[in-house]
């Protein structure tokens, strides 16, 4: 029996949550493998086959499943994980809404859902409930707490729209 030679290593240059990083990785790894190895534990290991949405991250402003994207493909790109959405004391409205609504039960699927919800609100600031459900169709919650999640996304959208309106009014004055 022949054993395949180990996959060569490479240096990967990416920006993660606003910080420039250089990681050393085998080139047969997914970006999920790299991020987890580097301590980004908010990128969750759900199914590793692209079915559950737990490992969702933003890659150059678009949501992807980290387990299904090759690490070398991300060279020079910007990555945003759930932890990069806000900071302690300055949370993203989606994060605040999830807290307010108790939308995280065990919390395992939450990072992926926040990323999917952010993409939705980036594209469509006033989504209907059906549009929220469609946007979260790739994220599985095994606690089955979808109602609170949808409530939280709807609430965050309202708050973000209200904030934008306020800014416009002040600017007009």
């Amino acid at each position, binding site marked *: 029996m022949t054993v395949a030679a180990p996959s060569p290593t490479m240096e990967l240059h990416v920006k993660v949550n606003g910080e420039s990083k250089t990681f050393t990785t085998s080139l047969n790894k997914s970006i999920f493998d790299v991020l987890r190895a580097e301590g980004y534990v908010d990128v969750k290991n759900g199914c590793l086959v692209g079915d559950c949405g737990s490992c969702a991250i933003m890659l150059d402003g678009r949501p*992807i499943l980290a387990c299904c994207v090759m690490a070398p493909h*991300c060279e020079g790109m910007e990555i945003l994980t759930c932890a990069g959405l806000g900071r302690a004391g300055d949370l993203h409205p989606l994060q605040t809404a999830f807290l307010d609504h108790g939308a995280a039960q065990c919390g395992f699927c939450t990072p992926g859902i926040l990323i999917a919800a952010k993409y939705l609100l980036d594209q469509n600031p006033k989504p209907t409930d059906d549009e929220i459900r469609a946007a979260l169709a790739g994220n599985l919650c095994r606690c089955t707490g979808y109602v609170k999640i949808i409530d939280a996304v709807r609430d965050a959208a309202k708050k973000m729209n209200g904030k934008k309106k306020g800014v416009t009014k002040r600017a007009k004055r």
Partner: protein
Amino acid sequence: MLEKLQEYVTPKTIPEAIRLLRAQPRGSAVAINGSIDVHWPRLQNARRFVDTSRLGLSYIRETKTHLKIGAATPIEDIVQSKACARFAGGLLREAALTLVSPMRRCETSVAALIINVARTIDLLPALMALDGSVVVHGTSKRSLALRDLFAGKGRTVLDRELLLEVVIPKPKAKTGTALERHALTPSDAPMLMTAVTVRTARGKVEQATIAVGGGLLFPMRALKLEKEIKGKPVDMGVFACIAHGVGDHIQPINDARCSADHRREVCRVLVRRALTRAAGLGDAR
């Protein structure tokens, strides 16, 4: 995972990408667009991945006669595209949305679905029903109808050729389209699905295309039945008869979702509904 992979190259030009694909034996070099799917067996034996995401092949262009979709275009771009929304009654957009996860739509390219003969979303049969073709480049550039492309489960007839774009002719006036699928849930792989186009004039079918996919090893066109329906009256009885023929014509798979026999029956129902709707006779449910 991907234990044999020794090289990951990201060419900047199409000739370079083709050279990198052709320098390896068949099956050893694989063009990808960055994302992978464990269900695609052709990736497992690859020694070299050729990343085609930086070749400028991500675009949707509408000309007077055609819609052209670059091979590296993410499925999400088809969903977002206004050109795709108005093209052929929105059939492409509707089919693209059957890949329900926005994350999957953002990372999966049109070429990935075609080259890996993806069965779980409805885009390939929709492209086939619209008479789509692919432009590929190996030793030379050539165009190939999608209906002639697939050779088996997860296999195409291409040999180390790079898929450049998908070209879809604009349907003629008075062409109706419809897509019908049967799945356990909207996000589940279909037991079977069909995409059809019907052009009518003076109460008769001038031309129809019928593509079936989902529960087959690879999607196919029912060319014999398409010939048969030509010139027949626009009538639900005729459509039921043709749909029955399509059910006989296909070779569905047996799997955990349902049996081949059940798929034949589902096919007859779906094709009848789709033809009825595309011909403007209303919802046949």
